[in-house]
């Protein structure tokens, strides 16, 4: 069935793996095929953010990247963040804050927020908007997602200034 099978090797959630792919396969399709289904298809056009994953710590739209493009890079997906027994701080705030409605946008939001928290030390509103603007949510009006995130960031910022 495969017209032009190739292999691609990259680190996924800390493990180096090799996958069969094709030159025209998108990273999102590869990830979902291989069981990393936390990244969702929402538009396939780089406009909704539900497919967001981290590439070398940067939030990217996996629906726009070809799988071959991530050769040798480090990819992280929602599957690497939190467990039922130990959700991440942001996940816990989203859950407690009633910020998860249909939830389809949420993994992407969490990945963008992860990039924000890892790459920045100072989280003024404008910086937060910059990182989160590419993740559309049609259910929540963003209010509760925003305040959940703000709670985490404020705590983190307080810690950063202490240490």
């Amino acid at each position, binding site marked *: *069935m495969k017209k032009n099978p190739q292999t691609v090797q990259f680190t996924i959630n800390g493990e180096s793996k090799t996958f069969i792919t094709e030159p*025209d396969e998108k990273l999102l399709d590869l990830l*979902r*095929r291989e069981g990393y*289904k*936390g*990244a*969702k*298809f*929402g*538009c*396939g*056009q780089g*406009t*909704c953010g*539900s497919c967001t994953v981290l590439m070398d710590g940067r939030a990217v739209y996996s629906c726009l990247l070809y799988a071959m493009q991530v050769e040798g890079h480090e990819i992280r*997906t*929602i*599957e690497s*963040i*939190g*467990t*039922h027994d130990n*959700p991440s701080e942001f*996940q816990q705030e*989203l*859950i*407690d*804050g*009633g*910020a*998860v*409605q*249909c*939830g*389809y*946008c*949420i*993994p992407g939001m*969490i990945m963008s927020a992860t990039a924000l928290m890892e790459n920045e030390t100072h989280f003024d509103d404008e910086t937060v*908007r910059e990182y*989160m*603007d*590419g*993740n*559309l*949510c*049609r*259910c*929540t*009006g*963003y*209010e*509760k*997602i*925003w305040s959940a995130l703000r709670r985490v960031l404020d705590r983190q910022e307080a810690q950063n200034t202490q240490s």
Partner: protein
Amino acid sequence: MSDNPTANFKQVHHSVTKIDAKQLALGKDSYVGDLAPREALIVKMLWSPHPHARITSINVSKAEKMPGVKAVLWHGNVPRNIHCTAGQGYPEPSPYDTFIFDTKVRHVGDRVAAVAAETAEQAEAALKKITVKYELLEPVFTIDEAMAEDAPIIHDEPEAYVPIPIPYDPKKNLVAMVGCEAGDFDQGMQDADFTFDDTYETPYAQHCPIEPYTSLAHVDSAGRIVITTSTQVPFHCRRIVAQALGLPVQKIRVIKPRIGGGFGSKQEILLEDIVALVALRTGRPAFWQFTREENFITGRTRHPIRVRLRAGIKKDGTITAIGMDCWNNTGAYGGHGLTVVSCCGSKVLPLYRCDNIHFDGKVLYTNLPVGGAYRGFGATQAFFAMESTIDKMADAIGMDPLEFRRQNHIQSGDSSPIFAALGEGKEGTPMTIDSCALDDCIAKGAEAIGWDKRTDWRDKTGRYRRGIGMACLMQGSSIPHIDMGGASIKINEDGSFNLLVGATDLGTGSDTVLAQIAAEELATTTDKMIVYSSDTDMTPFDVGAYASSTTYLSGEASRKAAADAKRQILKTGAEILGLPVDQVQCVASHVQNTDGSQKVSYGDIACYALYSKNQYQIIGTGSHFTEKSPPPFAAHYAEIEVDTWTGLIRVLQYVSTIDCGTAINPALCEGQTEGGTLNGISYALTEQYLFTNGRMTNPSFAEYHIFSMRDKPPIKAILVPSYEHSGPFGAKSVSEICINGPAPVFANAIYNATGARLYEFPFMPEKVLKAIQAVKA
């Protein structure tokens, strides 16, 4: 409320954690797309490139031979059973005007042929090999064109009919007509000191759930078709697929997993018949997910409606007459056409006291995208007209629009002739308003926005001008004598319960809300509930998630099921304790005597009933339909800043108050209110369908702009308490009402800022600028 019944609630009226929040936040497999097996065939559809054409020939033989192709479906090889894709009660108040495939295409994006192949690329390659010859027919794009004397007939198929006795005349492109009169409208207009006659237009819009339409089907080992689908209406889906395929309902099982948002769009059967057919023909699982573009062009939309509003008032602010004429463009198929236009009247006209009312609704076919159910459902369209005119009325007599609304709005104990006159495809149901906290909504919202600082537009100068606008709103809670919900609940050894509901959580949190209601009734905690929704093989029937019905209607069904189980628990508990049943009660997951000195836990009661003595399954069932549809009420406010040089609007603050009765889960109610409000804001300011010859030219989020986190203005949701005695623990609906506010609120705020009155939206800068310039001229 002198005695406050909500004070003693332990489960409802608390922001209990949404029960599926964690699995979703962890990104666990939850949605249809996550459940598709790797071996599933991928379905792709060839869509009509023409707005109106007859298919004179179609050749699929090349496509069938393409690599990976397992099935090609077209009008020559599928059953031809007329049906309606709208998921409504049965028989539907909508015409049967649809086939799986037809020899005619009626809009750009109508079905022509489907391919199922091993991969999406193979399916797409095969689509290109299908040759179709079309005889192009003259298209109909506007309501006026549709009503013209010798207009092209869009539905000329002889099979088309409407299954209930209502007017339907496809030869005139007429999908439905509905009207009612109360008092004497003409007399009311004559008695008025001031009269108004304005025409408003509301635009197309798409719901844009972030999860596109998605369906999966397979044939199980017993030969039955299992459809796992992103739907708001699993039971209607089963019935409609059975009808379209000519199969017994028994042969089909529909499962609804987690849904990535719906807002009405998924109250429609658009993919399920095809995946079911592919699975049947090939014996393989079949998966179909719309692209974002398909979501726009062939998914359902909000019906664009033209509303002519005539009204008369006295100098003292008495409304003497209201007349509403609505023309509903339902696009190429008629589903929801009648009911949406009925709701223009039934969900809007009762809000203000008036003796002389005229209502007339017409629904017309055009060769444009198909209207469907969309949150707000006609009320959104008509409230734009109503609340704009209400402001004009107040302005005419020099009264504060807030005071004018306060003086005229419906109150507890009032009725409206409209309740009895306008139903859904039949007469309505008379109703007296029980709970109404609209006065409080108005007061709290006014305070939050700073209504006091509002000044007349004539006093404003400079490039940037601020304005404050408001609107009052109502909706309903389910459809009386039409909607029905069912639930069952059974106990397990550890005192946990399986709550099975047909009600369809599509991201709203209704599973949680229903669990809270059941837990409250059973005097246990919500975390003891294992909720399963919805599966036509496993759960009781429910009409589905629409018409703001789930909390009010399915909630009461869940409460009744819990009450039924509770009776059994009490009886068994009393038997264990050796006490008469009238001397025990349920307290904190135990059955106990009055002072609590003797008690037995639900877990022990379950074990006793399942294993020890007089064995039986403690299981409660409940179902519910309603006699009334109590409206939630809302007052919305916004402060905006208009750039009078460019027409650009900046929303400084939006306040969304709501009286939804008892808020079963306040955090979720706020979430519904914030989300619906932002959707309404986005609709009012930026969302629009652009057409060239019937083709939508902006079918992507890049060009059809929905609000992002950066765009979002501050939204303040305020829950205003009331107690609806007919609802579960005092609850009414919450989900739909809030989307109705932004368009009229902004129209009124623009007027307050600049003196410019707009009669259509989205309020794009050029439109606003033109209106401002008209004021100056």
